[in-house]
């Protein structure tokens, strides 16, 4: 299951989708909205996706992971729209026969998702807003 959705993510459903009777291990990563960033309070986040391409890129990542680890089941769900602190932005779950593979595969998927999949977030603070990572990092004292 690959899902880009404006509705709240049902983590239990993501886990159930990834589970398998042949698996002994399920690893799940849940990315949530923090209430602070760079020392400022986050009021909300805006997530935007290029949906058709995002689904395609996630599929490529899953294909790669399936070649590297014995995945028995998997599910990726990413939320878009307006999210408040504490809400789930992304959930990734994989099941494998043994636990080490489940950790490695799940970490590979979320790490690669974060650099390849066309999804963007804008942090909205009390005094402004910013598209994350858009510009080169500026040194604090410059």
């Amino acid at each position, binding site marked *: 299951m690959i899902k880009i959705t404006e509705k709240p993510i049902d983590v239990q459903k993501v886990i159930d989708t990834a589970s398998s009777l042949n698996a002994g291990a399920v690893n799940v990563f849940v*990315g949530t909205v923090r209430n602070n960033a760079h020392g400022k309070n986050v009021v909300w986040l805006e997530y935007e996706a290029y949906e*058709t*391409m995002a689904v395609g890129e996630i599929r490529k990542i899953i294909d790669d992971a399936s070649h590297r680890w014995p995945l028995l089941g998997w599910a990726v769900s990413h939320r878009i729209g307006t999210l408040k602190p504490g809400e789930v932005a992304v959930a990734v779950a994989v099941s494998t026969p043994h636990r080490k593979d489940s950790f490695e595969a799940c970490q590979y998927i979320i790490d690669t*998702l*974060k650099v390849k999949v*066309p999804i963007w*977030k*804008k942090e909205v603070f009390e005094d402004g807003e910013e598209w994350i990572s858009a510009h080169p990092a500026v040194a604090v004292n410059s």
Partner: protein
Amino acid sequence: MHTFRVKAFGITKDILGGKEMVIEAPGVTVGDLRAALNEKYPKLTGLRSLFIAVNNSYADETAVITDGDEIALIPPVSGG
């Protein structure tokens, strides 16, 4: 001149001033389109990176764009 319809996401939507813009470029490669975009919207060159996707895949600078291709600007992603 060739005419391209370009989708913009994230910060490029702000820079271009819309979700979809028509751009004219003298050539038909991704590189030609990039040069035209940078000239018209210099703020694009200040981004940490800017990929151009053709038909839902990241495209090389030498890739040729043909009629009907879906073109999109991909500024630095920040999902998850």
